[in-house]
């Protein structure tokens, strides 16, 4: 028989085998840092590189600003493909790139998209953007290139003022597209390259290149590399005519121009950002309290079910309840996005990128933290006391409310505090479902991320300080409630 010990031995052997954690049977190739919107360029480059006999590239994808910051922080890489010229200039000015390597290699445009099948019948007019109550999903116009490009275009056609108040913050260009794809917004401004690759959106309007500043992508070779010479060869491959194919497959036009200009990473200099602490703290508290309202009774009912009832499938239910505790919040967010998106079972409620959406995401993620202490507290109350209350004439609900509830009050309070704390810190699921809209869905944790993106260390410090204080108060209070001495026994034996 296959025993558990044998299983462990096999597992151990598998994990200890050489290369268990690398791609199957492959040595490591050069490392390439790639902006999210340029991923296909890197994949095409990888194919060319391997065709020459090179080891597969190790591709790391993130927002352009994040990639640049990683290099500034000392990360090694052989090639960086950035969608943000300013960050490439920043890297060059810090003398982190090999001389003369920084080159603008592609340009592309913006377009206006609508969910597939939901496009208006008439031919597109720019007045549609931001008209009515509809939200426009757009990343930060300060920190993320797409936001900046879109803002400049809208300014040039005189629509920025009308649109500004309608913007729903999303983390990056891909999220802006995803919001339209999911039907959370009727319209969006995205990279033409991204829109062309999507099956779920229709392009309403391609912004002419003369109307908008060209969206440019630049490459550079970091001085701290991993494989000597690899960066130079990769750069050659991309700039050769053969590389143009990779660039076009990403929906961009090839271009070749030395990088010029001075670094201007937007308002990234510390201390120049207006404090968002007030609205962010207010939104966080509102979300946390609304999550308590949303979760309290379902969590109490679930805790009671798990503590007091024995039924078929109980352990399965228990595992399901605890799932959000273990599942990555982004996975929960993605599932919620499916459920709440256009065509999803809850799509008709129109909750994406709204405050109720943020509450729902927070509520799902913090549910197990509500349930656990409540359940322990209910299990700590002798069910015979409830039976006694009933023998004294109280119905089941009144018996529960006048005996079990007060006796379990501390544990239930601890559950509320822990769940509320989890809701306050929630990021992954909320940002996918509700975005990061200042004054509506941008909570402390999202503001911290935003401050990081903007390189606003002072703002981040302020936010982190407030988070720390809140967290300490909550954990301390929950601990005091949870560790309270249990009520003395009620029995008759002295």
């Amino acid at each position, binding site marked *: 028989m296959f025993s558990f010990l044998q299983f462990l031995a096999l597992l151990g052997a598998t994990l200890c085998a050489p290369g268990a954690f690398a791609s199957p049977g492959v040595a490591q190739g050069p490392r390439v840092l790639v902006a999210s919107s340029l991923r296909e360029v890197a994949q095409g480059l990888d194919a060319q590189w391997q065709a020459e006999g090179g080891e597969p590239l190790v591709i790391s994808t993130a927002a352009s600003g994040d990639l640049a910051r990683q290099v500034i922080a000392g990360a090694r890489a052989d090639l960086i493909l950035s969608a943000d010229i300013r960050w490439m200039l920043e890297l060059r000015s810090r003398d982190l790139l090999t001389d003369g390597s920084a080159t603008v290699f592609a340009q592309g445009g913006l377009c206006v998209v609508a969910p597939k099948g939901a496009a208006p019948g008439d031919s597109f007019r720019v007045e549609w953007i931001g008209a009515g109550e509809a939200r426009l999903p757009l990343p930060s116009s300060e920190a993320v290139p797409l936001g900046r490009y879109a803002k400049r275009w809208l300014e040039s056609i005189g629509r920025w003022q009308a649109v500004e108040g309608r913007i729903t913050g999303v983390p990056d260009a891909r999220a802006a597209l995803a919001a339209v794809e999911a039907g959370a917004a009727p319209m969006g401004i995205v990279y033409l390259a991204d829109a062309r690759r999507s099956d779920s959106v229709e392009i309403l309007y391609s912004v002419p290149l003369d109307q908008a500043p060209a969206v440019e992508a630049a490459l550079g070779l970091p001085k701290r590399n991993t494989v000597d010479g690899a960066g130079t060869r990769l750069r050659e491959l991309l700039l050769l005519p053969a590389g143009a194919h990779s660039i076009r497959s990403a929906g961009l036009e090839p271009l070749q121009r030395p990088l010029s200009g001075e670094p201007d990473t937007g308002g990234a200099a510390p201390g120049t950002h207006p404090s968002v602490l007030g609205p962010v703290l207010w939104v966080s508290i509102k979300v946390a309290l609304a999550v308590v309202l949303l979760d309290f009774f379902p969590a109490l009912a679930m805790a009671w079910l798990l503590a007091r009832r024995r039924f078929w499938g109980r352990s399965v239910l228990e595992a399901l309840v605890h799932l959000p505790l273990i599942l990555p919040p982004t996975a929960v967010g993605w599932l919620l996005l499916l459920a709440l998106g256009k065509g999803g079972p809850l799509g008709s409620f129109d909750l994406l990128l709204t405050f109720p959406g943020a509450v729902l995401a927070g509520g799902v993620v913090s549910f197990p933290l509500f349930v656990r202490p409540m359940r322990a507290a209910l299990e700590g109350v002798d069910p015979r006391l409830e*039976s006694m209350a009933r*023998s004294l004439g109280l119905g089941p609900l009144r018996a529960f409310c006048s005996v079990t509830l007060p006796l379990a009050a501390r544990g239930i309070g601890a559950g509320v505090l822990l769940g509320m704390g989890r809701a306050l810190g929630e990021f992954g699921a909320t940002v996918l479902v509700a975005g990061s809209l200042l004054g509506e869905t941008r909570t402390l944790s999202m503001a911290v991320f935003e401050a990081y993106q903007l390189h606003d260390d002072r703002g981040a410090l302020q936010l982190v300080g407030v988070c720390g204080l809140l967290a300490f108060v909550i954990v301390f209070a929950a601990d005091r409630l949870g560790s309270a001495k249990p009520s003395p026994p009620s029995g008759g034996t002295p």
Partner: protein
Amino acid sequence: MSSWLHAELRLRLGSFELHLDLAPKGRALGIFGASGSGKSTLLELLAGWRRGTGQRIRLGDRTLEDASTFIPPEQRRMGFVPQDLCLFPHLTVRENLAFGAGNTDQAREIERIAEVLELSSFLGRKPHALSGGQRQRVALGRALASGPEVLLLDEPLSSLDTALRRKLLPFLMAVRLQFDLPLILVSHDALEIEALCDEVIVLDKGRATSRGEPAQILAAEAAGHPNLLTGIVQEQTPGGAAVEVQGGAHFYVASPDLIVGTRVLFTLGSEDLLLAQAPLAGLSARTALPVQVTRVEQHGGLLLAEVSCAGPGAPKVRVRVTPGAVQELNLVVGENLMLYAKSTAARPL
């Protein structure tokens, strides 16, 4: 036959099976049995804390349980005092008492209950600040205050030490007297049942093995089961307190703290008694009573003579004798003899 309760209790729990029919003849039914005999389970079945398997319960003219009915505990009106009492630890004594008392009539009743059970001095305390006997009384009072039709008592005294038991038993008797409620008392303590019940069922492994009058049944069940007597303290003498039992006979009980005019329960060990054919002189025994033999019977290896004191309603007392004594004293039913007991043989409860 009319009885206040008709119950066919049925429960199967793994290998344990309870199968018991109840139709009490008197007002107070005792269930006697060792632990594990199903006594506590039986009360929980009656109170509706557990569901039986195909059982029927009728209380008065109400059907509480049958194939199609299950009246929930809150509508059964059973004043249940379980062995663990189940006092609400977060409530004061007053709040515990008032818990099941909905209307104002019962609020007035609480005053009376607190008085009878002498709870008034600690109404503001919580259960953890009470002694064991006080807790027992609170649980009993709470059950009474809910206006029950029946009292269900699970070992109300046996968890207490002798001193406490002596204090509490009069309360239980007062409850029987003043509230006049039908009562089911479950206990492994024969004295408790004999003191409070007028019928007993002996339960073993979920089934009744015998039923009948407590003194008789329990003498057969519990080897060395003492006589239990009750009476009013008449006077304190140097030789003990004189206690008058029904019929006028005086028993002497060696206990200086008994108060004249109060009711007292006391035991007389059957092996501590003497029978004589003629009055004796110069004896240290204080109690000397004319008695008549009513029965002689063998219980296991024991030979017991049951004698009756003189007077209407006078109690019967069992005396342990040897086969030789039976012959010498001519112990036959109807024979008149003298009963002697030292005052130290009578132990107040």
